[in-house]
């Protein structure tokens, strides 16, 4: 079909007054990928999503959605979106809202299948005002899918869900990717990015600070954690390959890029190391390392 990427963002910059929310962000998503935009609150994820949807006007940069401008892509029915604090109308029934949105797209997802995919069985006759938080999210997902759009943008889709609902939702999202949809979702749950995405884009301070598979990020960020019990006064930051150190009571935790080099140096000076433990860093460690350094850079500039 078309060779245009599902999403092509270059140099995107958005300011709210003095605050720079998105700072020259570049991102290209080929068709068919499932991409997590991962970052803390205020990293610029939602702003990026809103700009891609044409809901705000960027101060600089270029956005192409399947080779079109955001507004043209939406008018053509190429994009389905689940917004953060997404809205459903009062005084309406779920089925009426879904019917309205399905009819607005050039092609509609067959209703029975849409209901099953979004997991809203038995909710069509229900008044919107009578839905629970998780049910609302699923109805909003159904609206995003209603027109069978090639690109799906989901902004923190599981934020109102309990653990069980969240896991069911991940299964749904993986299913969408299996059908060939390009899925871009913002999240601050590492577990979610790890479970669903085949590519994780870490955003901090309005920029992309890391981009790769969850496994690559885990390997490329902080690799190992060493913890042991130590008395005060030891200069631990001077040890080779140590990226950061923290102390909780007498327990010291070092994050290191080369566990072997750090351990050799620790053992070399003969200090006893009670309760020594060496562990692989989690994706969380990797992201925390990445986003905290980006924040420090941002604060300095």
């Amino acid at each position, binding site marked *: 079909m078309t060779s245009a990427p599902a999403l092509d963002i270059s140099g995107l910059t958005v300011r709210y007054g003095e605050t720079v929310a998105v700072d020259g962000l570049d991102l290209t998503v080929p068709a068919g990928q499932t991409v997590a935009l991962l970052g803390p609150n205020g990293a610029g994820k939602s*702003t990026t999503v809103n700009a891609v949807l044409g809901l705000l006007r960027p101060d600089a940069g270029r956005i192409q959605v399947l080779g079109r401008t955001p507004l043209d892509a939406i008018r053509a029915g190429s994009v389905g979106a689940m917004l953060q*604090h*997404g809205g459903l109308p009062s005084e309406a029934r779920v089925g*009426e809202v879904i019917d309205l949105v399905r009819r*607005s797209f*050039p092609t509609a997802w067959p209703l029975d299948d849409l209901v099953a995919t979004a997991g809203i069985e038995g909710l069509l006759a229900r008044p919107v005002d009578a839905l629970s938080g998780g049910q609302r999210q699923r109805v909003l997902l159904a609206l995003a899918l209603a027109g069978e759009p090639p690109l799906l943008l989901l902004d923190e889709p599981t934020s109102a869900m309990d653990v069980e609902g969240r896991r069911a939702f991940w299964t749904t999202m993986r299913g969408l990717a299996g059908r060939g949809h390009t899925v871009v979702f913002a999240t601050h749950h590492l577990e979610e990015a790890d479970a669903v995405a085949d590519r994780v884009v870490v955003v901090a301070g309005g920029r992309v600070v890391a981009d790769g598979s969850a496994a690559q990020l885990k390997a490329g960020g902080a690799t190992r954690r060493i913890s042991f019990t130590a008395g005060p006064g030891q200069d631990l930051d001077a040890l080779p390959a140590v990226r950061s150190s923290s102390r909780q009571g007498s327990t010291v935790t070092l994050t290191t890029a080369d566990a072997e080099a750090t351990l050799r140096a620790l053992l070399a000076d003969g200090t006893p190391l009670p309760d020594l433990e060496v562990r692989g860093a989690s994706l969380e460690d990797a992201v925390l390392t990445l986003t905290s350094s980006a924040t420090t850079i941002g604060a300095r500039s």
Partner: protein
Amino acid sequence: MNPLFAFQLRRVARNRQYLVFTVVLPALFTIFFTKIFGGMASGPGEYQRQAALYMVSMMAYGGLGAALGATIRISFDRASGWLRQLRVTPVPQTQVLAVDVAVGALLTLPSLVVVALVGRFVNDVQLGLGQWLALVGVLWAGAITFVALGILLGLALDEKAAGGAMGFVGVVLATLGGLWAPVEVFPDSLRTLAHAMPSYWYAELGRDVAAGAVPSGTAVVVLAGFTAAFALLAVAVARHRPLHAVAG
């Protein structure tokens, strides 16, 4: 029928409060005021004059209340995020606005017709068939001023303020515009204020028709001016208030 139009119409029609305040209440007031003031009339001619006057005033009150009530609701859709959600569907924005105008305009009609029927069959107001049609017609057309005002308020006010404004603005416009008590009994300063109200000129359209005349040019020009001003302000407000949540 346009799917969005049908959808919006169904939503408002579900609201019983809306029907009570815009149809039942003006109809009851028409009977109430006519019983009081018509009962004091010196003769049948005077009764006809009073009964027609109150009927027109209550048609105007019902019409402007219905137009405002149907459109100020935009604020709720904005607060719930529904307007934003619609923005990310292929429904054109111009259609969303056009539907709000059309729904506001259409929902004005029931209150005009019901109050007119009450005037004719309960209060025995005597007008020619052409006059009846013209009366409903001019008040229906003139309601566009309040559709524009309602859209402006709906876009400008947050949810809570909008809820209050729905009842309050209609009552203030009715009171100051001389729909409860005619401006003839107002002191001079209040009468000047009444003449600055779109509601006064709106009812004036109906009073002219009920008196067998053509609506005055002044009333038409003033209402057109108010409509244009409200519409321009609404566009300005819509441009300056983004629909996205400023966070993240």
